[in-house]
């Protein structure tokens, strides 16, 4: 994602008009992504082999001998008697109005179920994201600053370790060490900040590791670039170069992966909230999949796309302000001297 693709596209958009039009274009693309995510989830959930109604009713535990009336009602509710296109159009029209239907087992409207679970997960994600940025950024800075080889190697090997370890395992180990052995934090539940600590750390490990990896790579690349040589030739200290030159250049590409990272934290919450028995979006997802509660799953997929779109829109808004080169990237592709 940090490749020149998105950056070039931003540059192209920015060149075509002013900042306002640029943002408007990006927002329009966001709407497209939302629509496409909705359509995709519709295709996956309703068109794959298997009759959604029997899946739904089966999952509620009724099993054999379901009430034909219930089947008919469900079919009518989801317009399953009509053609696929009509079904899809009904669903899309409802979704635009914010109606994703109701949960099969509980009958609760999907949007309300999500709204109830969202605050818990937002708190978790926010704390975890902050942790990941601080720890990942710190680790990247440290590992590129340390000049003693063995320590540097150890520090550089931490991020690959972080992305390789299963999240559920980290959570369980933290539980064992800090809840059961040391009894510092509660093992489960949503009560208060102390219940947030272990889940947040767990969720922050893979994300922080990714940040550290990407940032360390960019910092290293910056240190190899000629402008750093110029800076050194000017007599600037290593610390000055690291903080004022390398970090500034190196953190710009990190911006581009924030959207994906936040989405992955939402997905990671499924595991983390299960491990720590917390209520939230993740738990809702896990329970809905277990119950094959298709309307809720679809709502969750669209929610994650919405989060992705919003975060990326924020990144897009900031990007041209931190990277003055934007608008030039596109020109680089002018074919004039391509042969040379």
């Amino acid at each position, binding site marked *: 994602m940090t490749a020149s693709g998105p950056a070039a596209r931003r540059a192209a958009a920015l060149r075509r008009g002013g900042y306002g039009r640029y943002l408007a274009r990006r927002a329009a693309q966001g709407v497209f992504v939302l629509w496409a995510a909705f359509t995709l989830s519709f295709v996956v959930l309703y068109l794959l082999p298997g009759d959604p109604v029997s899946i739904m009713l089966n999952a509620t535990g009724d099993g054999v001998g379901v009430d034909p009336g219930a089947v008919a009602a469900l079919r009518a509710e989801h317009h399953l008697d009509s053609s696929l296109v009509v079904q899809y159009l009904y669903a899309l029209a409802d979704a635009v109005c914010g109606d994703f239907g109701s949960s099969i087992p509980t009958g609760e409207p999907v949007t309300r179920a999500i709204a109830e679970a969202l605050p818990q997960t937002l708190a978790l994600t926010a704390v975890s994201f902050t942790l990941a940025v601080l720890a990942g950024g710190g680790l990247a800075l440290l590992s590129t600053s340390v000049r003693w080889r063995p320590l540097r190697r150890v520090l550089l090997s931490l991020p690959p370790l972080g992305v390789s370890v299963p999240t559920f395992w980290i959570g369980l180990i933290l539980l064992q060490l800090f809840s059961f052995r040391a009894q510092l934090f509660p093992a489960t539940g949503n009560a208060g900040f102390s219940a947030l600590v272990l889940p947040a750390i767990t969720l922050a490990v893979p994300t922080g590791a990714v940040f550290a990896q990407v940032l360390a790579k960019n910092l290293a690349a910056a240190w190899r670039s*000629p402008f750093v040589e110029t800076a050194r030739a000017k007599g*600037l200290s290593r610390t000055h170069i690291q903080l004022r030159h390398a970090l500034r250049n190196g953190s710009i590409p990190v911006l581009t992966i924030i959207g994906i990272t936040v989405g992955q934290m939402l997905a990671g919450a499924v595991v983390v909230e299960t491990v720590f028995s917390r209520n939230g979006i993740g738990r809702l997802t896990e329970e809905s999949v277990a119950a094959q509660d298709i309307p809720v799953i679809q709502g969750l997929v669209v929610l994650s796309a919405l989060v992705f779109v919003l975060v990326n829109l924020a990144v897009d808004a900031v990007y041209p302000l931190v990277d003055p080169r934007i608008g*030039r990237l596109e020109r680089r592709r002018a074919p004039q*001297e391509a042969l040379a």
Partner: protein
Amino acid sequence: MSLLEITDLRIAYGDRPAVEGVALTVAPGEIVALVGESGSGKSTTAHAVIGLLPGSAAVTGSVRFAGEELVGLRDKELEAVRGRRIGFVPQDPGVSLNPVKRIGEQIAETLRAHGLADRKGAAEEALKVLERAGLPDPELRARQYPHQLSGGMKQRVLIGIALSCGPELIIADEPTSALDVTVQRRILDHLEERARTTGTAVLLITHDLAVAADRADRVVVLRHGRVVEQGPASAVLTEPREDYTKALIAAAPTLTSDRLKTTDPAGVPVLRVEGLRKDFGSTLAVDDVSFAVRAGETYGLIGESGSGKSTIARLVLRLEDPTAGRITVVDEDVTALRGKALRGFRRRVQLVYQNPYSSLDPRFTVEQAVAQPAKAFAVGDTASRRRSVAELLDRVALSADTIDRRAGELSGGQRQRVAIARALILEPEIVVLDEPVSALDVSVQDQILRLLVDLQAERGLAYLFISHDFAVVRQVADTVGVLQAGRLVEQGPAEEVLREPEHPFTRELLAAVPGREVRV
């Protein structure tokens, strides 16, 4: 007493030596040129002086600056010397300024790092630096980012930074090799003038003897990490003592050296371009260009970067479609060929690229690379193709065992020979040479140019020779065309254009060719 005194400097990367016992001196206010081909260790030596080598380099010997030993100093101590007492001008200004910091900040931070100014004072001083660098509207430039400045402006900024703290010595590492010739000259003039007026000594690293001759008081010639010869510029360049220096001087083309091409072409026109035009969106890359190339003739197309010379090559090769105009090969209009006919056309026009490192697939053996065009047109069978490849390799003076090696294992000069053999296997009528020697060292460059001239005489080839270098074009071209911003501003017989250039831009290009000071 000398300002800089390097004695027995040795630098190695692991077990691979890069510099083996270099000794040289620079007196206060003196300009010394360190000349050598690629791999001679000139740049490594320069970087060693201010301790900018990577950690894997092992440095021994002595570098004394104003009596103080620099080898073995700790970073903190070196930082006080760098920028403050020794300025550095890098090779490629395009990448040597931080792209996301304003120009003004990048100048000011140097002054502040050495405690020469506070925040406010440094910002004001930065404006003066820009003014002395000869940049109009310093206030505007200080607020801009590097990508908003041209290459020449950026190099002026970098020279300004190097001089900003009043250093006693400036190290300039090939300061103009990434710039256009006309810009090159202005930047060197600027650097020389600033150095002379401030009394700053300069260690000028260059691969170009002519540049050294024009600018330096003394010249040090480096080869394989050793000093071959050194002395006053005039002496070394007019009366070289060592064979290597002599060969280097003989190989370097100047505007007065002997032309390689002596015969006059008398063939019929094989390539004719009329009213050629190419737009890329709103930019006009090629504007109403007409010329003709006869069999056995070399047409030299000269221009700076962005002049449209490469676009013309692509149009002639039909890699790009012209917006307007006509291209004729012998009597066939090839402007709009498609499909099969276009493929047939490819047999008649071949191409040699500038960069031999990227124009050959590194996975291919030399045989595969050279035989590929013949195979594409199903010429002969595998055995007969191998024979033709072997003959061609012999013709381009590559040893017989080259045939089974991979392109990746060859040197730049060898690769360019392979690329020439590949261009000839289909026996084309026209060969487009796109800066065929500009990526090569002078001695190799000379060999390749001679080879091209011989092959042309032998086979009656028509060459479209594209270059930015007037001295090179002059050696091989019968006719030259001068391109400026997509327009052919002047064309005619090479000797004539050279002797009596009519267009001011041609005169500027000619004046920019280094080597005016010392005539060999």
